[in-house]
């Protein structure tokens, strides 16, 4: 390893260490016997995990988070797949449309949440719900999905579709028998990505979250702001961190199996 590589490795290692140090601390202390965040560590216990499972506010908001993440994922997968398939060809206003979609990713979260709140409540007269959250988060997730798919689509996909059409397949049959089986794996990657993004999202969902039945990040933000934290929140955090990590690693493994992270082999 030459000097530059070594330097980069050290820098990367230090960054990861510093970022994950507080998190590791919390994960460790979620197993602490007594309610304390400070050393010394008193011994191993699962009681905070039991505690958060029995807390109705947490469970309800966890359920909301998962529900909303699932809906967001479904919307994102369908919309970004349709867009990615369409963007392979030239059509009118292709470039402006692409930038508009990309805007969802670039738009500051707080602004997106706030504007969605105004549109939902004042313009559309919609009650805030899991659905309002999902639609808002989809605007953010779809450009991620679109880019992942555009980069990972097999360039020969259009060719296979042409071959299918010549040999008797109507448009729907082409999709079902040729396109979908070939892009299946990429869709799973987008789904995993979108799910992780949606689950952890705070800023955008804060605004469009129902005040009485919020999603988890919102609940945590409001709770932890007012009360000193008990370790049951760390237990919760640990579970979510582990689940998110597992999801991302699965997605990464699937993508790597066929080449690099963003480039298809």
């Amino acid at each position: 390893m030459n000097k530059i590589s070594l330097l980069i490795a050290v820098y990367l290692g230090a960054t990861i260490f510093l970022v994950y140090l507080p998190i590791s601390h919390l994960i460790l202390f979620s197993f602490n016997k007594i309610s304390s965040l400070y050393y010394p560590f008193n011994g191993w216990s699962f009681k905070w995990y039991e505690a958060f499972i029995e807390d109705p506010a947490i469970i309800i908001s966890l359920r909301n988070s998962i529900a909303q993440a699932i809906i967001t994922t479904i919307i994102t997968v369908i919309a970004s797949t349709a867009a990615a398939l369409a963007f392979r060809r030239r059509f009118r206003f292709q470039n402006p449309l692409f930038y508009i979609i990309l805007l969802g990713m670039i738009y500051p979260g707080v602004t997106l949440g706030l504007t969605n709140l105004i549109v939902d409540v004042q313009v559309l007269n919609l009650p805030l719900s899991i659905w309002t959250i999902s639609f808002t988060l989809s605007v953010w997730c779809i450009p991620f999905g679109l880019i992942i798919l555009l980069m990972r689509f097999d360039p020969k996909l259009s060719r296979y579709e042409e071959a299918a059409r010549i040999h008797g397949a109507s448009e729907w049959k082409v999709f079902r028998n040729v396109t979908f089986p070939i892009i299946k794996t990429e869709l799973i990657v987008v789904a995993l990505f979108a799910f992780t993004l949606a689950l952890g999202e705070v800023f955008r969902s804060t605004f469009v979250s129902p005040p009485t039945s919020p999603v988890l990040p919102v609940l945590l933000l409001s709770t932890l702001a007012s009360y000193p934290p008990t370790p049951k929140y760390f237990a919760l955090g640990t579970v979510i961190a582990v689940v998110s990590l597992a999801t991302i690693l699965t997605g990464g493994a699937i993508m790597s199996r066929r080449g690099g992270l963003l480039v298809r082999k």
Partner: protein
Amino acid sequence: MTSNKKLVVENLAKRFGKVIAVNNISFEIFDGEFFAIIGPSGCGKTTTLRCIAGLENPDSGSMLIDGLNVSGMPTYKRGMGMVFQDLALFPHMNVFDNIAFGPRMIGRPKDEIKNEVDEVIGLVRLEGLGDRRITELSGGEKQRVALARSLVLKPRILLFDEPLGEMDPALRERMMVEIKDLHRRVGFTALYVTHDQEQAMTLADRIMVMNKGCIEQIGTPEEVYLNPTTLFVAKFVGTINLIRGKVISIDKNKKNIEVETDVGIFLAPMQDEATAGMSIAYAVRPENLFVGKEAANYANKIYAKLTNRTYRGLDTEYTFQLSNDEEFKALIQEERERKIEVGEETTLGWRTEDAAVISKPSVIRGLDVDRVLLGE
């Protein structure tokens, strides 16, 4: 081969933005015929093919297949088959499923599909390979799967889009023989697009030469090779030696034309369109040239210096430099002993009947003899 018209194309036109890809062309293909379209890149042959296939929408014109107007008909209803340059075999299916794809899509009954697929597998000699994944096949085997995938549907026309482009020469030779053999046995109508005139000459019953979206000539391989109607065709099909010249006189008795060039005066067989004073290209093919002592026997002779000799196994290609610095090539078969060495000067000779005078540079307006000679 009956004289039923399988495909009638009339005034087909297609442009992409400002570029005219297909410029109002009309032609016919007969039932059972092996029809090739050749031409340089960008001449419109692939666009023509894709319009007939339904993969492109022509701007105007009609296409009749078996009398049926297919313009506006979606691709999957046209009843054709196609072998692509990159084969486009479905990667997520094995050999059997690839071939069975067509019958399944059009709704053939299950038990009959198995019979039909097995029959075609036998036809292309892929027995026992039904279970294989596409990635496990050799180049030749993949070609045969591509052929089978189309043939199983008994297509009205089997379209070929440069199918042998990405092959090594040995495999290409074998595949050409196989395709020709299949055509003989099955009798399908074929539309074969390629830029390689050798493939077309070997496989086709008739060849259509295209240039910049227009048709230069349609004819049998013999017609196109021996009687090119334009300079473009003469240059594109096989190798040919060309010199600019002017018609001096026409001898109606001997049925000859006398042509003056800056390397000599030559004779060519009489042609109806040739008139005295006309600016033409004088043409003679390399295989018709005699080198050295025997050249003296022939009516047409020039002095030339040997600049290169390329041994090609079956024959040797000699490259000569004429006194006006232009190049002449000669093809000598089975050279026993070397006639001359590089750098030596010698005489080249040929018979009058082996020469030709071509007055028309191209069907494209605005091109003159010089520009076509330069390769535009």
